């Protein structure tokens, strides 16, 4: 297990240091949250109606940000080749990278999401569920997004291509996460959405690394 610890430490250092780490993601998130009332109009009822959902949308978009560099840097300087030949299987490397991504970017964003939602006018009693679903959703965004990042290795299209591949895959996460919060807001049953969100994120935590490793091997071949 110590091998995995070494991997995680490396990935966390990379993720944290990479382009300002969580700061950039949170700053981006704050910008989106600020733009929303400017775009939609500051009427409190209208904002409050879209607040939880918009907070989730901003979470999805912010999660896209650091994806491009997830595998790209190691691919470019040859470190990915070494990792592929190393003692740890590429699947484990993928797990480490996505977990590090989630810890360094996803969790700070998850802390910020209820703040933004409340600032936009959402009911404060939604905060616990918003935070919990943002945490689970961030896990899903990291592991699903990693698939897109791995598939785009070696193409020079980078970020836009990743977005085009990954955003459709984000659809269930957004529907379930935002939907659970909206359900609670409307007094409906939020548990199916929340549980399915958790199941989806965990499932992709399990399956995603296989796709990512296959994509990396394909790019390295």
């Amino acid at each position, binding site marked *: 297990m110590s091998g995995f610890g070494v991997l995680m430490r490396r990935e966390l250092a990379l993720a944290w240091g990479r382009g300002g780490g969580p700061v950039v993601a949170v700053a981006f998130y704050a910008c989106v949250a600020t733009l929303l009332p400017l775009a939609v109009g500051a009427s409190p009822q209208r904002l409050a109606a879209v607040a939880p959902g918009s907070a989730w949308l901003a979470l999805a978009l912010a999660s896209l940000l650091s994806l491009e560099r997830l595998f790209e840097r190691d691919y470019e300087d040859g470190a990915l080749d070494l990792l592929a030949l190393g003692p740890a299987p590429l699947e484990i490397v993928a797990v480490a990278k996505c977990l590090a991504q989630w810890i360094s970017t996803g969790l700070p964003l998850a802390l910020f999401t209820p703040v933004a939602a409340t600032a936009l006018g959402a009911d404060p009693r939604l905060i616990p569920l918003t935070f919990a679903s943002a945490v689970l959703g961030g896990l899903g965004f990291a592991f699903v997004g990693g*698939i897109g990042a791995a*598939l*785009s290795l*070696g*193409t*020079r*299209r980078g970020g836009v*291509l990743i977005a*085009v*591949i*990954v*955003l*459709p*895959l984000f*659809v*269930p996460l957004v*529907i*379930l996460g935002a*939907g659970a919060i*909206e*359900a609670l807001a*409307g007094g*409906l049953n939020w548990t*199916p*959405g929340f549980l*399915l969100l958790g199941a*989806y994120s965990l499932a992709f935590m399990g*399956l995603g690394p296989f*796709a990512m490793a*296959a*994509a990396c091997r*394909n*790019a390295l*071949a």
Partner: protein
Amino acid sequence: MGMITALANPQRFMTVSRVAAPILAAIAVLLAVVGLWLGFSAPPDYQQGATVRIMFIHVPAAWLGMFAYACLAGSSFFGLIFRHSLADAAARAAAPLGAGFTFLALVTGSFWGRPMWGAWWVWDARLTSFLVLFLFYIGYMALQASIDDEAKAARAGAILALVGAINLPIVKYSVDWWNSLHQGESIFLKGGPALAPVYLWPLGLMAFAYTFGFLALWMTRIQAEIWRRRAGALAVQGAR
């Protein structure tokens, strides 16, 4: 299974498809003519009036959008596991056709719904799922287009196609759940036994017509893919 392995040889595929594609196309045209004839001869629906005629081109297009993705995913699976270049070509060839049919399903769905709902687009469970399916096609084609190496493009595309295939039922389920939250009913009539036979026949014929048409086009596109790869190989030879 025997038919698949028989077709798997590219040479054999070319000879079979050269005959099969035109035949399938002819059958498709015939079925479409009869289907449309019957479809327009049927009386206008009690609720929907004459707009029920749109069903005959909407439902088959939607069915094909899904069927083409199944073909894409199945070919991707074979190409990935058995490293078969014909399967890779088949997957790549299915995508634009599937995207086209999905697009037609979305457009006809919009036209079908406008008289009933008063809006050109609603976030109904069906339409939303098909929009996401369309985006899956676009992402797949974008990925393949951005990788120059044939084999790498095929493998990357195959991985994405299979991830997408896993996602699609989840998308459908989550959209349904989300829709039920907002108390939306499924706006589209459920087909099947509830549909009167006078509508069922033309619908079935059109569905088969579209399917045979797709198969004919798919085979032809795979031929084009094979020729394209051969042209590429000849270019490499000629450069020596």
